[in-house]
């Protein structure tokens, strides 16, 4: 079994008729993703890239047997779209690409998420890919190569950078998960790592963190206590000054001891996770671990 998505995933695209939704649906279909439906209120009956559109997600699940959703809905409506996806029992994975969703909207989505069995990845993330099987989101499929290294990252382009380095050195990926850089996200590092730990197709994991929050510190604890699959790490933002917001709402150093690059690197190294100074060094570590 692959992690989160694979060749059996039956995908509904929420917001499929918008500019981004339409473009990336074409890309996803081209990559081989099994996109079975779109959902846009008022657009039921239309088609995009050969995919039938329904008015509601529930209808898409009932009529097209969708079990996975990817959300390309504009930020003002994306919280509602997440609620809609989570209200449909058949959907067990929801990947929200949308950037700029109000934080309080997401805190309510997160609250709702805790009452379901679904995984929500994102928001403000590049998506999830199981190379050669399925791609959800905006990741450039061509840089990925099927293989046995899992990747989980807060950042989009940093993910591409690390994947590129891996692929160039002949190391393929099992699944790559962009968990997103917002203050509130559905799937954390710990949850993503747990998925890789259970996955028999993943031999090692690369975890790319950033300054801000304590998610990397928690991940280090989890790795130390529960993981047998080896992990290599990278932390962006070593040179960021405290208190400054660096692009991602998440990337802010609180100055309270945790959340700094130093705290995260120390925590990971204490959990025997080798941390690279550069993306290339991360790949060196992965080679050592395999």
């Amino acid at each position, binding site marked *: 079994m692959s992690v989160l998505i694979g060749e059996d995933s039956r995908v509904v695209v929420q917001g499929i008729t918008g500019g981004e939704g339409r473009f990336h649906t074409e890309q996803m279909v081209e990559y081989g993703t099994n996109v079975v439906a779109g959902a846009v209120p008022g657009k039921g009956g239309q088609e995009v890239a050969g995919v039938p559109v329904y008015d509601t997600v529930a209808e898409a699940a009932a009529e097209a047997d969708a079990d996975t959703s990817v959300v390309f809905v504009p*930020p*003002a409506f994306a919280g509602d779209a997440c609620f809609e996806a989570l209200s449909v029992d058949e959907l067990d994975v929801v990947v929200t690409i949308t*950037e*700029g*969703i*109000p*934080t*309080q*909207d997401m*805190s*309510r989505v*997160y*609250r*709702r998420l805790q009452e379901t069995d679904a995984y929500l990845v994102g928001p403000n993330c*590049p998506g999830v890919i199981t190379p050669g099987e399925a791609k959800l989101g*905006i*990741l*450039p499929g061509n*840089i990925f190569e099927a293989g046995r290294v899992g990747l989980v*990252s*807060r*950042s*989009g*382009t*940093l993910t*591409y*950078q690390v994947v*590129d380095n891996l692929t160039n050195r002949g190391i393929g990926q099992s699944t790559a998960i962009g968990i997103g*850089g917002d*203050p*509130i996200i559905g799937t954390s590092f710990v949850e993503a790592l747990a998925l890789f730990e259970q996955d028999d197709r993943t031999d090692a994991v690369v975890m*790319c963190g*950033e*300054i*801000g*929050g*304590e998610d990397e510190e928690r991940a280090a604890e989890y790795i130390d206590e529960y993981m047998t699959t080896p992990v290599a790490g*990278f932390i*962006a*933002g*070593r*040179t*960021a*000054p405290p208190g*400054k*917001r*660096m*692009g*991602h*709402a*998440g*990337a802010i150093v609180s*100055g*309270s*001891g945790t959340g700094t*690059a130093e705290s995260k690197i120390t925590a990971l190294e204490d959990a025997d996770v080798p941390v690279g*100074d*550069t*993306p*290339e060094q991360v790949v060196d570590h992965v080679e050592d671990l395999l």
Partner: protein
Amino acid sequence: MKLHEYQAKEVFAEAGIPTPASQLAGTVEEAVAAAESVGYPVAVKAQVQVGGRGKAGGIVLADDESEAREAAEDILGMDLKGYTVERVLVEAAVDFTNELYVGVTMDRGESKPVAMVSTRGGVDIEEVAAEDPEAITREHVDPAFGMYPYQARKAVYDAGVDRAAAGDVASVLSTLYDLWEDKDGADAEINPLMVTADDEVVAADAVFNVDEDALFRHPDLAEMEEEGEFSETELERKADEYGFDYVRLSGNVGIIGNGAGLVMTTLDLVDHYGGSPANFLDVGGGAKAERIANALDMVFSDENVDAVVFNIFGGITRGDEVAEGINQALEQFETVPKPVVVRLAGTRATEGMEILNTDLVTVEGTLEDAVQRAVEYAGTAADSGGVEQ
């Protein structure tokens, strides 16, 4: 998005939180008139969006007209942590017996809102949090239900606020939470919330930061943001205009990239190879030629910058469009003002590299090489000035 103190107080007062009488002033004469109007003693307070104004001399008490005049003369026009003070808030000074702290923010570790109360108000609350975390009582709020009144009371009683003022403090905290929720606050704080001898409470300072991403549903706050831009630096104004995530730093290597994580990694590599980053600038996803040109303009505007490194890994962003933008931006100069190193990867990177005018820029194939080259340029360019076209 941060409101100024005077704006935050306006918002708080409208919601029913007691604030001292005050007036905004842009000149010394206005400040003196304002002091007459609110009544002495007054506090004259610099309206700039930085912490620690008091310690830096940005807040001065005045008992009479000559003191008020002197305070206004000192503060108006002063430089506070890089910002020029253009306005002061003249406010009735409050006679207090106690200074409390109340605040509401999103606890990202718990993914839920948290309301906070401390009897250690009137000082830097972050220091209190670091040295004595127990001195701040935290009450997490279920975002599905909002904050119930009992939670505000519990936080206030648990913090050890005197019973005589506790009801009013709880009510201020409830109002602050509701405001924070209704207006999509990021942080809402009152520090100090003063308690007077007859147990009245007054918000002597006010912080209200709004979630940028939610500003679209709060036109009133968006207007305040615009009005408050008088205190921005030239570079901040430009970043706002262009819509960039931009942070100025103290080094001399200008950095432009796409995606926060990758840009931060570029900063880290500059440092790793012995250089010093001048800024963080994220052009975001899918940037077209014009946006790329704007980014270059921003970084060139910073006199500290001696060399620029461009690091783009294309996903949605297309390498050919980036290259177009770079060419356009540089071709307008007779002499390119600072040396530019470009590294393109991902979508249409090959096409982009072919388009790039290598008379104007240095192209490198890997991130590491690009950063090293820029650091090298910055070291030499610091002495020589621009690159001849």
